[in-house]
C-alpha cells in the first residue's frame, strides 16, 4: 500500500497486529473486534466508517488505552500498549492521547478555561489553556460554564481540552453525532486545523459518510474487521462538507 506520508516503520505512530476483543455473553461469545491489523502514520487524518456494532468504538478504545484487548497486539511508537496495567495505561492516556466523545463529557462545575486547565495542569508539555481555546475559536467564551454554552461550543471546548496537552494521537468517537450540520462543520474545521497546524495524528469515527472527504485515508469496519481502506486522492477542506 504505497502512499504518502511515507509508509515507513519509523513514521508509524500506531500499529495493531491481530487485535481482538471478545465478550462472553453467557454461553456464547461476541467477537467485537476480530484480529484487526492496522497502522497509522504520524500526522495522518483518518476517518473510520462502518455500520453500527461493527467494532469501531471497540477499536478506538483499545488503541486509546481505555480497554484491554482479549488477544493480539497494539503498539504506540515502539511501546506495546496491549498488556499494560492500569497505571501504565493511565500514563499513556495522560501523556499521548486526546479523546473527544459524542457527549462532550465536560466537568459542569468548571468553566471552559478551567476544563482545559484540568488537563494542562497534569500534562508534560502543554500549551496554554487560552491558546487551545483560541485554536477552536472560543477565545471569547473562556469563562463560561458548560451549561452556558451551546452543544457545538461544548464540543469545541472538549477538543481544546483534548489537544491542550499536545497529544500525539487524537481519538474522536462521533464528535459531530449530537450536532446539526452547521455546528458539526465548525467542529470538523477545528479538528482539521489542529491536525494541520500541530501534526496530531487524528482518528475520527463517524456515521456520516460525507465526512470521508476530509481524510487522508478512510477505514471501513464491518463485522469486527476492516473491510476496506481507501486513500483520498483529492482531500477536501472541512468547510466544503455538506450533509
Amino acid at each position, binding site marked *: 500500500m504505497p502512499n504518502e506520508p511515507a509508509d515507513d516503520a519509523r513514521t508509524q505512530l500506531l500499529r495493531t497486529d491481530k487485535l481482538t476483543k471478545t465478550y462472553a455473553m453467557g454461553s456464547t461469545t461476541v467477537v467485537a473486534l476480530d484480529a484487526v491489523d492496522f497502522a497509522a502514520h504520524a500526522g495522518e487524518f483518518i476517518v473510520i466508517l462502518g455500520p453500527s456494532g461493527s467494532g469501531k*468504538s471497540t477499536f478506538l*478504545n483499545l488503541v486509546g488505552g*481505555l*480497554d484491554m484487548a482479549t488477544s493480539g497486539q497494539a503498539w504506540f511508537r515502539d511501546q506495546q500498549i496491549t498488556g499494560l496495567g*492500569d*497505571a501504565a495505561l*493511565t*500514563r*499513556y*492516556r*495522560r*501523556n499521548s*492521547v486526546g*479523546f473527544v*466523545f459524542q*457527549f462532550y*463529557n*465536560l*466537568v*459542569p*462545575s*468548571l*468553566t471552559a478555561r*478551567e476544563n482545559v*486547565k*484540568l*488537563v494542562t*495542569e*497534569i500534562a508534560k508539555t502543554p500549551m496554554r489553556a487560552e491558546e487551545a481555546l483560541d485554536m477552536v475559536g472560543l477565545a471569547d467564551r473562556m*469563562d463560561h*460554564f*458548560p*451549561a452556558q454554552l451551546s452543544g457545538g461550543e461544548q464540543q469545541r471546548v472538549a477538543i481544546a*481540552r483534548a489537544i491542550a496537552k499536545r497529544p500525539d494521537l487524537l481519538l474522536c*468517537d462521533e464528535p459531530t453525532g*449530537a450536532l446539526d450540520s452547521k455546528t458539526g462543520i465548525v467542529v470538523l474545521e477545528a479538528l482539521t486545523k489542529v491536525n494541520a497546524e500541530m501534526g496530531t495524528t487524528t482518528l475520527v469515527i463517524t456515521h456520516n459518510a460525507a465526512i470521508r472527504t476530509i481524510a487522508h485515508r478512510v477505514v471501513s469496519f464491518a463485522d469486527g474487521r476492516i473491510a476496506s481502506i481507501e486513500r483520498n486522492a483529492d482531500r477536501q477542506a472541512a468547510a466544503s462538507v455538506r450533509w
Partner: protein
Amino acid sequence: MSALHIKLFREMRRLWAQVLAIALVMAAGVATLLIGVGTYQSLDQTRNAYYQANRFADVFATVTRAPRSVLQDIADIDGVLAVDGRISKIALADIEGVEEPASVLLVSLAEDSVQGLNRLYLRSGRLPEPSGATEAVVSEIFAEANGFRAGSQLKVVMNGAQRQLTLVGVALSPDYVYAVAPGEIMPNEGRFGVVWVPESVLAGAYDLSGAFNAVSVRLLPGASEREVIARLDRLLAPFGGQGAYGRAQQTSHAYLDSELMQLQSMSRVLPPVFLLVAAFLVNMTLTRLIALEREQIGLLKAIGYSAWSIGWHYVEFVLLIAVLGIAIGLALGTWAGGALTELYARFYSFPVLVFSREPSLYLIAGGTTMAAAVLGALRAVRAAARLPPAVAMSPPAPPAYRNLLAGRFGLVIELRKTWVMVSRHLLHWPWRTAGGVIGLALSVAVLVGSLWSVGGVDYMIDYTFNRTERQDATINFLGTRPASAAQAVERLPGVLAAEPFRALGVEIGSGHVTRRIAIIGRPAAASLTRLLDTNLTRVDIPESGLLLTRSLADILRVGPGDIVNIRPLEGTRQSRPVHVSALVEGYLGLGAYMELGALQDLVAEGDQISGVNVSVDTLMQDALFARLKQTPSLGQISMQTVALQQFRATMAQNLYVMIGVLVSLAGIIAFGVVYNFSRISLSEQGREMASLRVLGFTRAEVSTLLLAEIAVLTLLAQPLGWALGFLVAFGMVEGFSSEIFTMPFVIGPEVFAYSSLVVMTAALVSGLIVRRRIDRLDMIAVLKTRE
C-alpha cells in the same frame, strides 16, 4: 405485590449499604432512648413499688435515747401516718478468713413487725426467733460478697463485748437499697453490711430497754414534710435528737435519685441527636434518589399514577428504613438496657430489678423514629409528588454552577482544578454540606461530651487520693475518745504517723437552706491530709472560722466572709454563727473543715477526737489488722487503697461502660453521615470522575475529589464539634452533679484530639469503602451514554 412495591424492594436491595447506614443511626437513637428511659423507668417503678410494698418511711431521725412512749407523741403529730422506733448501732465485725476488719449496722427487729416501717424483704432463710438471742438476718450484697449462708457465723462487737451471731436469713430493706458505711462514698461490698437482730438483743447489749435511738415516720398523703420535721425536732430535742430529715437526705434514696437524674439527662440529650442526624440522612438520600428517578416518576404519572401514590411510594421507602432501624434499635436497646439494669442490680438491692419492657416505651421509641424519618423525607417527597409529568420526562437542566470563589480567592491563589471542583460541588449544595458538617460535629460533640469524664474521674481520683487525703488508712472510733487515743494508735504495730481528727455532725444553714453534714476538725499542722482550692493551691486551716467545699458553699449561697449557722447534732446543740474563711474544692459529698481546737470549743466538750488518719508500713499491715481485731474498742479501720479500688470498680462499671457505648454510637453517626454523603457525591459526580480517568487522571487523583470533600467536611466539623462538645460536657457536669458527688470540669486537649481522631477514622473508613467504587468506575459505559 404491586409493581411499585417490587420497585421498592429492588431499590432497597440496590441501596442496601446506604439504607443500613441510615438504619443504624436510627437504631442508635432508638437504643439510647430505650436504655435511658427504659432503665429510668425500671429503676423508678421498681423503687416506687418496693417503697410502697415495704412501707419505706418519709422522715428519719436519730436520737441518743428516747423512751418508746415518745413514739405515741410522734404518731399524734398532724400529718403522721405511722411511726417506727428502732435501735440502730454501728459495730465492728470479724469475718472468718478476712484480715481487714469489717463493720456492720445493727438494726433491731421488733417482735411484731407488721406495724413497722422499712419492712424487710426476706430473700432466703427466716427471721430470727424473738427469743433466739444469737440469731440474725444479714443484708444480701454483704452476704453474697462474703459467701454467707444460713448457719454462717459472724462475730460482732456489741458495746465492747464480742458476740457470735448465727445468720438465719438473707434480707433486703427499702432504706438500704444502696448501703454505704457512714462517712463513705462508695459501697464497700464485703466490708460493710446491715445486720438485723431481735430488738431484745440490742436493747440488752446497748442498755436501751424500752427505748429507741432511730425513728422513721411515714406521712399522710399531702402532709407537709417541713412541718412534721419541725415538730419532730422539737419533740426529740430533749432526747438528743440529731435533726430529722426527709427522703432527699436519706443516703440510699439520695444515691438512687442521683442515678435517676443521670439517666434522665442522658436520655434527654442523646436520642434527639441521633434522630436529627437520621432525619438529615433520609432527606439527603431521598432527594438524590428522586433526582435520579425523575424520568420514572414522569413516566408513572403519565400512565396514570396519582401524585399521592408516588409520594406514598417514597414515604414507604423511608418507613421501611425506619422499620429496619427500629428493629435493630429495639433489639440493641433491650439487650443493653437489660445489661445496664443487671449492672444496677449489683449495686442496688431490690427484691427484683428487671428491665422495663413497657409496650408504651417501645411505641414511643418506634413512633418518634418513624416521625423523624418521615419529617426528614417530607421535602423530597413533596417535590416528587409535585413534579409535573412533562417536566419529569425531560432531562433535568444541567446544574448551573456559579463562580463563587473566583472573584474573591481566584486571583490570590490558583487552586488546582480538582480542588475547584470540590469547592464548587460543596457550595452547590450548601444545605447538604452544612448538614454533613453538623452531623459530623454532633458526633464529635457526643465524643467530647462523654470522653472528658474519663479525665474528670482521673482528676478526681488524683485530687482525692494523691493530693488531699494522703493517709494510708483512717481509723474511726466508735463515738469520741480523748486525744490521748491518738498516741495509743501511734504505738500500734506498723503505724508510722497518726494525726487526730474530730468529725462533728451538724446542721449547717444560711437563710432557709440547711444541710446535715459532718464538720471535720483537724490540727492546723496536719500533713497527711490537706485542703486545696480549685486551682490546687494549698489552703491552710485557719485559727478560727470555717472552710467550706465549693459545692456546699454553692448550695448555701455563701462565700468567704459570710456567716453561716451551725447547730451541732450532739453536745451543746446550741446554734452558733460561724464565719466562712475560705472555700476549698471537694468532689465527694458536702464537706466543711475547722481547726481541731476551734471545733472542740464549738461543742465545749474538751479534747475529744473521733479518729485518726495514719500512715502505715505496708509490710506490717497484717500485724496491724490483727491487733485491731483483737482490740475492737480501737475502732474501725478503712484503707485508702481499698477505697480507691471500690471507687474505680464502681466507676468502671458505670461510667466506662457508658462511654464505650457512646463512642461506638458516635462512630456510627460519623460513619453513617460520611458514607451517605460520599455515595451521593459519587452518584452525582461519577460521570465526571470517569471522564477524568479518560483524560489520564490516576485512580488516586480521581479519588481525591471524593476524599477531599470528606476531608473538608470533617475538618469544618471539628471546631464546631469541639464547641458543641464543650457545651455537652458542661451540661453533663451540671446534670451529673448531686450533693453526693460532683464532677470536676477538667477537659484537656487530649479529649478533643481523641474525639477528632475517632470521627476522622470513621470518616476515613467510610471514605475508603466508597473509594473502592471509584476504582471500579466503568469509563466506557459512561462515555456511551448521555447524562
